[in-house]
Each structure stands twice: as structure tokens, then as C-alpha cells.
């Protein structure tokens, strides 16, 4: 039986549907894309007032299933029921009217519109003349933010917000639909611990109101902290659903990847050489001041701090994206003038940026083209011609090493799962064969198995004498991988911690001052 959204809304309002054990359920769902079966006879059942985590490797089909529930993709087969009524979700609007809202893995806000405009888009309060009532809209936003304890100005432009704050806006927007089901696709991949705690408070509050929350994450600790139940997917197949109190982290990993992962942070002590990169009194007016540090060959320097502390800005400045207003950068003891990324690459630096969509992926281009663009500056070309064969072979090898899941390298990067896009971007920079590697949130959106592999890569590069600067909001990653940790707070360096003395508490003390 298929009911119109209006009927459904009425039924929902009445509140009582006998026998509705599950809030939302999907069964026998199948979805194929050209060359890939993303979902194969999958089921998913969400109970009222619970947080249900979805786990699985990159490309397992989690986002695809949620996009089906949010009306973005149409399934090839399967049945979706909301409060025991079969429903059809032909569009995102349909899903919203059925009480399903989704926060996407990639941010989807309009940068040139204000926070309030973004939240109430297509639902703007109107005045008597039918024009948008900005006053009312900003008040509504302020109310919403007060309820969620978010300290943002409704009138600021989204484009000027940090990634983390944009994520908070997305969350507020999804909550504002007052839906019964809230889907969150890796909401914390751009957040630091403080904000994650904040988000969890919001989630617990929503849960106590009877809302069902679907929570996709690659972070195991979050699962135990917030989820009541979890379902695991592997290669488009449904593996099982369990209560999160019943299992250990190793159980889950085994379900996810079908094998054991022995060591999470394969950090090895490698010989540490001479100072490779030295930064002195680096300042970018209004953003950060007097940042000084050095990284030795073979050393991994972790950069910790809260969002907005200026970690990413320092990285961008070193790489010439936003040249410094004062201060010096030296490589091998020689002062260098890095006024553009071109210059930085010439000095054999590589920089994986934080925002995959804005500064990373070339969405309309294929995987091969995405991987090769940074390396073409000085290699793989002869008289301006690209040495396609050699380059394709090396890209192929790299994508195999990073385990990029794709039918072939001529797939548009847009069609890859989030984690696989990230792997392609890592591959882009590893191909340049850097001496100084700056990584900003390198494992964002990457599954446990691949994460360990990427960490192993980084360790291996360090062994070969590469100097690594790694920014990460994930404390275990920073602590697990770094030889030293530099902590920043509001644009200033507040301290350095050696590997032995770096603990979560010490880092947080310095980060919060």
C-alpha cells in the first residue's frame, strides 16, 4: 500500500499506529550503478528513540542506503516502511514530508547566503506582501541555536565559517525540519572533540524526544558512546545488527572487514635526521601570530588544537596558499620564499587539504586525472606531452595500494564513496614523492582498515626521511602517530609535547588554555 504524503502526515499526527515496532524499516533493498552493485538485498530497521549506527568499509554502501531513505536515489528493488506503512520516496521533498531528514557526508550549504537563509531555504517565513521576512527568519534561527546551544550569528555568511561551524549549521538545519528520523552521514568527520561532545548532547536530547537517529561513522569510540544499536555492511551486503553493548571493538572490525586488524597506529621509531623544515615567527595578520617550529627528516609533528585555533591556516601559509605577512620558512637551513603552491611543490612539499570538496576533488574529472594533476608540474611530461602510459601505470599501482574501490580509473571521482575520494587525493600527493608532507585531517572519512594502512604509509615515508606535519582532530590519531605534538590556541602556539609526555589531558589543557 502506498499512501500519499498528506495521508502519512495525518497518520503520523494521530500518533498511534498499532504494531509499529519499527519507526523506519527497509527490506530487500538493491541498488546498482554502472559497474558496481552498491547494495544487494539489504535490510535496515530503526527503532523509535534510538541511535542506530551504520558501520562498514569505504564503499560498503552506507551513504547509498541513506540516500535511498532520503529520497535522493531510487532503489532498483526493495520496500521501505515508515511506522509500518509502505512508503515511496520519489524525491528529497517526499522524504522530508514523510519525516526523514538527512545531513550529508559532503557539506551542501550555499557559501554566499547567510546562515539563516541556508537553514530556512524554501521554507522562508514570509511577510504580508509575500516577501521573505528576514527579521523573523533571523529570530527563528536564533531560537533554534539557543535550543541547540550553538553560538553562531544567524546573519554571518556561510562561506566565511570554518568547516566545523558549517557542519554545525547543517546539523541545525536538519534538526529544524522537526523530523521523526534524522540521518547523519559522518557528521563528526570535520569536528574536534569539544564539538563532538556538543553534537552528542544534541543527539541525546533528540533521542529522548523519541526521534530515531541513523548515525554513520568510522570512529569506533563514538559508536560505543552514542549508539544503542548498530548495523554492519560489507561490499553492499547486509552483515548484521546488534546492540552496541553486546560486542567489542574487535568484533565489529571483524564484521566490517572480514579479517583482523592487529595494530591501529603502526607507529615505529625511525631514525630522526636533520632539521628539514624550519618555520620562524610566521604570522598571517588577523589569523595567527609568531608560529615557530621545526620538523626533522623522519619526524612526524602532530598539530593539535580546537577548530579555529589556526592549525589549518598555518599549513596553508607554509604551502603558499595564503602567503605569510611576516616570518620566515627555511628548508635544509636555506631560507625559501614560498609565495604560491607552485613554489611549494618545487621545494618538494605536498599538502593534503582539509576540505575534500572545496580544495581537493575535481568532481567532473575521472580518478586518473584527479590523481595526476599535482605531479604534472615537473614529471611525467616530455615536451609538454603527458606520458600517459607510464603515468596511468603508476596511478593504477597507487590506487591499488590505497585500495581505492572502483570499477576502473576512468570513473568520475564524483561517483566514488567519500572515503575512496580521500584515498585518491592522498594518492595524488604521494605520487609527487615529497620530502615534506603536510596532511590536514588525512583520514577523514576513511574506514578502520584503510586508516591503519594510511598510517603505515606515513610511517614508511618517515622512515625514508620525509618530514611529516599532521593535523588531526582525532586525538588518538595525533597521539598515536606523532613524535612531537604542537598545540595551538587562537592563532598562537601554546606548547610542544614529546611523544612520552603527550596525553589527551595535557593536549586539551594546552588547547583550551
Amino acid at each position, binding site marked *: 500500500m502506498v499512501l500519499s504524503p498528506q495521508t502519512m502526515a495525518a497518520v503520523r499526527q494521530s500518533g498511534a499506529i498499532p504494531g509499529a515496532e519499527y519507526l523506519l524499516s527497509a527490506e530487500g533493498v538493491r541498488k546498482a550503478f554502472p559497474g558496481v552493485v552498491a547494495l544487494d538485498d539489504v535490510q535496515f530497521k530503526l527503532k523509535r528513540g534510538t541511535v542506530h549506527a551504520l558501520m562498514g*568499509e569505504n564503499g560498503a554502501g552506507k551513504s547509498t542506503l541513506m540516500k535511498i531513505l532520503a529520497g*535522493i*536515489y531510487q532503489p532498483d528493488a526493495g520496500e521501505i516502511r515508515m511506522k509500518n506503512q509502505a512508503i515511496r520516496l520519489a524525491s528529497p521533498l517526499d522524504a522530508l514530508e514523510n519525516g526523514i531528514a538527512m545531513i550529508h557526508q559532503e557539506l551542501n550549504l550555499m557559501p554566499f547566503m547567510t546562515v539563516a537563509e541556508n537553514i530556512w531555504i524554501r521554507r522562508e517565513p514570509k511577510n504580508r506582501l509575500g516577501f521573505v521576512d528576514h527579521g523573523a527568519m533571523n529570530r527563528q534561527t536564533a531560537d533554534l541555536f539557543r535550543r541547540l546551544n550553538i553560538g553562531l550569528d544567524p546573519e554571518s555568511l556561510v562561506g566565511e565559517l570554518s568547516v566545523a561551524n558549517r557542519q554545525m549549521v547543517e546539523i541545525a538545519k536538519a534538526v529544524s525540519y522537526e523530523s521523526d528520523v534524522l540521518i547523519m552521514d559522518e557528521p563528526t568527520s570535520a569536528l574536534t572533540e569539544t564539538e563532538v561532545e556538543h553534537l552528542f548532547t544534541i543527539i541525546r536530547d533528540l533521542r529522548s524526544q523519541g526521534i530515531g537517529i541513523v548515525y554513520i561513522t568510522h570512529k569506533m569510540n563514538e559508536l560505543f558512546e552514542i549508539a544503542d544499536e548498530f548495523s554492519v555492511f*560489507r*561490499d553492499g551486503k547486509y552483515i548484521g545488527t546488534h546492540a552496541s553493548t553486546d560486542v567489542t571493538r574487535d568484533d565489529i572490525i571483524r564484521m566490517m*572487514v*572480514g*579479517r*583482523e*586488524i*592487529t595494530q591501529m597506529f*603502526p607507529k615505529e621509531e625511525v631514525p630522526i635526521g636533520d632539521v628539514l623544515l624550519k618555520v620562524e615567527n610566521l604570522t598571517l595578520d588577523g589569523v595567527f601570530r609568531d608560529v615557530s617550529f621545526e620538523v626533522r627528516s623522519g619526524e612526524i609533528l602532530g598539530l593539535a588544537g580546537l577548530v579555529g585555533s589556526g592549525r589549518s591556516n598555518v599549513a596553508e601559509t607554509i*604551502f603558499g596558499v595564503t602567503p605569510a605577512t611576516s616570518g620566515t620558512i627555511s628548508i635544509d637551513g636555506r631560507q625559501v620564499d614560498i609565495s*604560491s*603552491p*607552485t613554489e611549494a*611543490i618545487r621545494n618538494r612539499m605536498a*599538502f593534503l*587539504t582539509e576540505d575534500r570538496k*572545496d*580544495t*581537493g576533488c*575535481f*568532481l*567532473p*574529472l575521472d580518478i*586518473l*586525472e584527479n590523481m*595526476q*594533476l*599535482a605531479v*604534472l*608540474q615537473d614529471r611525467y611530461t616530455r615536451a*609538454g*606531452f*603527458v606520458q*600517459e602510459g607510464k603515468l596511468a601505470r*603508476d596511478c*593504477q*599501482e*597507487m590506487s*591499488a*595500494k590505497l585500495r*581505492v*574501490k572502483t*570499477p*576502473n*580509473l*576512468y570513473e*568520475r571521482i*564524483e561517483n566514488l564513496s567519500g572515503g575512496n575520494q580521500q584515498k585518491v587525493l592522498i594518492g*595524488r600527493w*604521494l605520487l609527487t*614523492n615529497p620530502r615534506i608532507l603536510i596532511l590536514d585531517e588525512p583520514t577523514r572519512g576513511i574506514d578502520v582498515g584503510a586508516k*591503519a*594502512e594510511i598510517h*603505515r*604509509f606515513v610511517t*614508511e615515508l618517515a622512515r*625514508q626521511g620525509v618530514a611529516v606535519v599532521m593535523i588531526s582532530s582525532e586525538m588518538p590519531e595525533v597521539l598515536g602517530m606523532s613524535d612531537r605534538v604542537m598545540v595551538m590556541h587562537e592563532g598562537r602556539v601554546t606548547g610542544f609535547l614529546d611523544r612520552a609526555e603527550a596525553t589527551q589531558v595535557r593536549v586539551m589543557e594546552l588547547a583550551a588554555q
Partner: protein
Amino acid sequence: MSSDIANPTNTTAGSVAAGAGTTRPEAIRRRRMPPEFNIFLVLIGIALIYELLGWTMIGQSFLGNQQRLTIMILQVSVIGIIAVGVTQVIITGGIDLSSGSVVGLTAMIAASFAQASTWSRALYPALTDLPAIVPIAIGLGVGLAAGIVNGVLIAYTRIPPFIATLGMMVSARGLSKWYTKGQPVSGLTEQFNFIGSGIWPVIVFLAVAVIFHVALRYTRYGKFTYAIGANMQAARVSGINVERHLVKVYAIAGLLAGLAGIVTAARAQTAQAGMGISYELDAIAAAVIGGTSLTGGVGRITGTVIGTIILGIMTSGFTFLRVDAYYQEIVKGVIIVAAVVADVYRQKKRAKR
């Protein structure tokens, strides 16, 4: 990448679902169907419709008339030369509205250095009977200069391409009128006229198309052009000197518009300030019909060549069927919009599926 990091020690126990986590080695060779294929089918479809209408309405073959097809392709060659440049500009996410005016300007200036001494009203009586290479070089120089001005304005002052090239469109047209105070430039040398004679314009068009097809597909220049259109920020972070590259692309577009101006003047054996009016729109139409996306990052020269021929065959077919010129323009407009709608639809479908 050094090879010892190629195989990070594998701690995996048990088997990973084979082929799921990794790409298969042979997969790299498989290419998708070229996107031009659909456009090519459209071209064939249009030709067949004319053939059918020809037999039923006036009892003649459309495709059977070799001469008509030759004239058709001669007529669109100049548009095609411009469109090759415009395609590259659109791939970077920009637009070039100035090419038609640059055609007019280069036609005038080149012609003024190509006049024969036998012509009594030569603009520079002291500079007549020059070898054809002189007006050609000057013409190409003028086009190149116009393109560089466009490029520098767009890349370094961040004026939107639409505005910068709109300015050039108006100014270049003004310049070409001012140059002779509106008088045409005639009496050109045999040698100069030769470039516009016979099948030469078509050869120039095809040569230009082949060169830039190769450049876009196989050179660093091409890869960077697509990258800038796909994501300018990411291109910058990947070490591409975006500003310098944009100047190159607009300079090439200007150069090709200049070349088109030379061919136009040689073909007409005279130059007038009004030459090339609205050519920029036909060139943009050819690119868009050929699958170049106005949002940037997508487009190919082969598509543009087919798009150019579609434009030509439409006009030629209408003339063949003796359809009123007014209708021709109306239908042309509809087809251009249809091409853009098809592009938008394709993108939507890709996003949704």
C-alpha cells in the same frame, strides 16, 4: 614513489573479498563510450530528416549534392576555427564574447597590409604588394593581443569573463570602424586571397581542430585547462599557476579569432568593419551543442567540430528546403537552448541516478 613503500607490511589475516577492495589491473584500459557519440547520432539524424524531407517535399536528395555539402562546410569553417578557441575558454569555466569583433578587427588590419599596388585607394600606399606572410603575422598578432588583454583582465583583476570580453567585444568593434572611418578595405593581393580560396578555409579549420584536440587530450596544457574549470581552488593548491594559464587560454582564443578574421577577409577578398558580427554566439553555440558544459571542466574539440557541422547543416538544410530565413533563426535558437537543456539534464541525471 619509491618502491619500498609499495608494499606496506600486510597484517591482514584471512581473505578480503577479492576484487572488492582493490581495482583490477586490467580495468585501467577500459574506456567509456566517447560522449561525442550521441551528438554524432544527432548529426546523422538531422541529415537523414533533411534527406527524407527533400525527397518528399521537393523530390531532391540532400546528401547526394556534393556541392551543397562543400559550400555548407566552407561557410561554417570560420565559425569552427573560433569555436575551437571558445571551447577551451568555456572548459576553464569562462566565456569569450569578443571573438566576433576580433574577427572584424583583424580582418580590417590584416587586409590593410595585404593591398595590391594596382589598387588606387590603398590605405598605406607605401606598403603595398607585401608578401602574404606580413598581413597574416600582423593579423595573428592583433588577435593574440586582444586575447592577452582579455586574459590579463580576467586572471589578474578578477573581472568576470562575461564582462571583460563584453568590453573587448564593444571596443574591438569600435576600433575596426575607426580604423578606416568605416570604409571597406579592398584590392587585396592574389597571394593573400589564396588562403580563402577553394577548400583552404576547411583545411585551416580541420588543422586547428586536430592541433587543439591533441593539445587538450594529451598535453599538460590540456590537463590544466580541464582542472581549472573543474575546481579552480583545487587547481591552485595542486600547484597550477592558474592566472598564467588563464592568460594562455584566452590568448589562444584570441589568436584563433584572429586567424578566423584573416580567413574571412581572404575569402571575401575584402574587409569590412562589420565582419564577424554575432560569430561569437555561433561559436559558443557550436561548443555547447557539441557537449561543452558552461559550468566548466567538461568538453571536447571533437564535440565542437560536430556541433559546428550541425549548425552548418541546419542552415544549409533550411535553404535547401527553401524555408524562410526568419524561421531558420527561430529554429536555431530553439536548438541551442535544447542543447543546454540536454546538458543540464545530463548533469542532473548523473547526480541523481
